[in-house]
């Protein structure tokens, strides 16, 4: 079991997106990508290397693990592996979200968001 000190100080954007995708449901790799694409309106597109490279690192640091049960037995390819977020992962995700929240707060206090986009 990984120790807290192993956790990264901040998550990479890809890791954050993947954890976010797993926050409400267990998903397989393609499912994660599809969730991210539909949630961001296609703005965030992960390549296969980024996706599985990040999944590998997240598993090694214990933020996610392979799900024990397969949620959908009618799944077309039974070999697909599902991933689930661990309690540690949830904590890291929350910490990252809070960090971002603080930053957004700072940005607001400096009136960054008052400017119209494109200016």
């Amino acid at each position, binding site marked *: 079991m990984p120790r807290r000190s192993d956790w990264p100080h901040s998550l990479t954007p890809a890791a954050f997106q993947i954890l976010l995708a797993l926050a409400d449901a267990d998903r*397989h790799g393609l499912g994660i990508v599809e969730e991210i694409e539909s949630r961001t309106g296609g703005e965030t597109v992960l390549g296969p*290397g*980024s996706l599985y*490279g990040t999944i*590998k690192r997240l598993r090694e640091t214990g933020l996610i693990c392979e799900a024990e049960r397969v949620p959908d037995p009618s799944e077309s390819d039974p070999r697909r592996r599902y991933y689930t977020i661990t309690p540690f992962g949830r904590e890291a995700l929350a910490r990252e979200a809070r960090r971002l929240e603080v930053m957004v707060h700072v940005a607001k206090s400096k009136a960054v968001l008052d400017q119209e986009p494109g200016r």
Partner: protein
Amino acid sequence: MKRLLCALFLRLYPKSFRDEYGREWRELAARRGFLSLVGDTLREVPVQWRHRASGGQATGRKGGGSLGTTLQDARFGLRTLRKRPLFTLMAVGTLSLGIGSATAMFSVVEGVLLRGLPFENPEELVSVWQTYPEWRGNPDLAPMWDWGYLAYPGFERWRDGQTQLQGVAVHASTARNLTSPGDVERITVGVASASLFSVLGVQPVLGRGFLPEEDQAGTAPVAVLSHAFWQERFGGDEGVLRSTIGLNQTHFEVVGILPRHFELRGLGFFGSGGAKPVWIPTGADGYRRAENSHSYEAVGRLKPGVTLPQVAGEARSLIPAPDEDPGHSVRAESWIELQRAGLWSPLLLLLGASGILLLIAAGNVATLLLGEAAGRRHEMATRTALGAGRRRLVRQLLTESILLGMGGSLLGIGVAIAGTHFLLAMAPALPRLDQVSVNGSVLFFAVGLGVLSSLVFGLAPALHLAGSGARQTLATGWRSGPRGGNSLQKGLIAAELALTMVLLVSGVLVVRSLDRLLAVETGFQAEQLVMARVNLPGYRFGGMTERALRVEEIQETLSALPGVTAASGTSSLPFYNNPNALSYGIEGRPAPEGTAPHASVMDVLPGFFETMGIRIMEGRPIQDSDRSDGQPVAVISETFARRHWPDESPLGARILFGDTLLVVGVAADVIHESLESKPSAILYLPFFRSAGPSINFLVRTTGAPEALYGMIREAIHSVDREIPITRTGTVTSLVLASARDARFRALLLAVFAACASLLACAGVFGVTSRAVAQRQKELGVRKALGAGAGGLVRLSLLGAAGPGVVGVASGLVITLFTSGFLRGFLFEVQPWDPATYGLVAGVLMAIVFLAALFPARKAGRVEPMEVLREE
């Protein structure tokens, strides 16, 4: 292609990653584009290797930092290449030429041949033709014997009775006048059975296709537009659905739009609208529904497990034989093969030639590397002495080669983009040419070529260099290392020359063939001749008499134009539209059953022969007085005359062709179809006796032909505003268009051959220069011992002559074996033409001599004292 690419990219990851995630990686990679995959791989692969090296997974295996080593090699390689800018520039430039030309050719092949046709499972489609075996005995009909169209009633019987196919359909091509919206214009119209689009698996992008009831005569007229027609006429406006277009003044409701890349070969035969047809259902075309109107191309979709002979057998039993051809049969052929027929060999020829050019370029870079190797032997020896293994050195040198290859690819892609533009501008009309582009698979091809060729040209020099004994080199000093590199260089030069020989011979052969082709006597004078094709539609001009009047009026107006010396017209114009081959008889000479002779029939206006510049060999031409009320007359061509009256004058003979025609003249032969074709037997009849709806007016001018176009249009429209002019142009351009394929081939092969010669020249120059530089000491000693400057020059020239002779000789042998492939592309030139071989061999030897002469002269100027002092 994409799968191969994915497999390659995946190989770049550490094995542990591949084992764990390979399958899923592939699944997602299949959804990503080429460029995003490249970016993803470049980002993630180093991360994975670093992760692995830093003990993410302690495997304890040796070489855990192999990516690190590669990166180190790459950095080192870049540094050494930067230190030798001239060498790097030459190598990358040479490679980019080879890679660029091969890639440009590949992009055309990929777009035209490799990319899937925009039809559903096209390999299931079959093309069905009626055949008339007895036609084979008749030279006029033989070319068409197994390409018989279906008549509509025959199609109906086949469609209703057949069991082997999932569906059957027919289509035909015709031309109509687009009468609204806009000015009247002649356009291509496709006639389709309701099943056509569903059999081909094509879905309209807007609206619908045809309904079964629209195959019935007399239903409300509807039309489906091709995508290009929709874009061009309506700017892609979706509101066009349910509006109408006028064809020959009948209003057709637009019910659907076809997808962009829907294109059928065969359409556009009538030459008026290109491949941008309007489609109408068979029910809207009364003429083509008749029992004896064989005008439909048939296509069907196979049920699983059914073979082509089964389809043909069943169709034969269902489609009735025409009365006059009881021996008729039916054949079935793969439809997709037919769509691609005749495209493979010319494109493969050019792709092969560009491949040879690439090999020559790679050979050249290899000689460059070997030349460099001489200067680097000391470096390699030092590195070996300091403990670098042979493998490590080979790896380092190969990395350098791959860097060169990558540079070549990058620059080559630029060359390919420019080259593809050039090819598209020059290429003859090929189907799907609009889809040719430098896309992902083309880019992959370029990068693959770069890597592959760098391995080809890099391996030999790397092995050679890393293998040279360290101790010996260090002991003897770098200048006099082992000579192996020289013989390798000479071998490479010989190989380059041999390949250059292949390209040069091919280039000269096709250029000579083009020359012969353009020198063909057509039998008429195309220069200063302008044509304008018009259509006098029945819906406006009623019968023959009125049409004849209008034609006469136009002819008079055209004759009166300033600068015009003669004006006439013909139903079919050489190199533009082929006349019908029809059967006839000779009075008093009955032909045996089934052997009736055929001749091309042309209806011509008075003054035709004079305007065209066709000589009258005997008798008189068609005249103004040859009207429908007088004695029916005919002029025949020389070939026609020779066929029946080889030893006597045909004047006064009578030909049975509907009426009994009196032969009043013999005209010189003309070539009709293409420059390669032989003159056929032609029967010229007075136009006014039949006055068909379409005619090509001809105008001979003393001024610039192009200046006449506007005046001709005005003249025709002054007679009637609503006469559509299908096309105006010079007759010369029509004749040249017939040589367009040959010209394209000749131009490309000539460019390839010129590049090859240039590369070979540079190769010989480089190798000789280096040989002279390396032999400075020996030459100096020889001079000190009394050798004259001339002798030293000869000695150096002889060094280059060896590979020259070997290369040219082996090139002769290779070319003898390969030039047979050219046979189908040559006109009146033999692929084994001795003069061409002799000429090319001579030119190549001269190139070798000249390229060697410059450095060799340096040998003569060697100063013995300087050389000896350096030691």
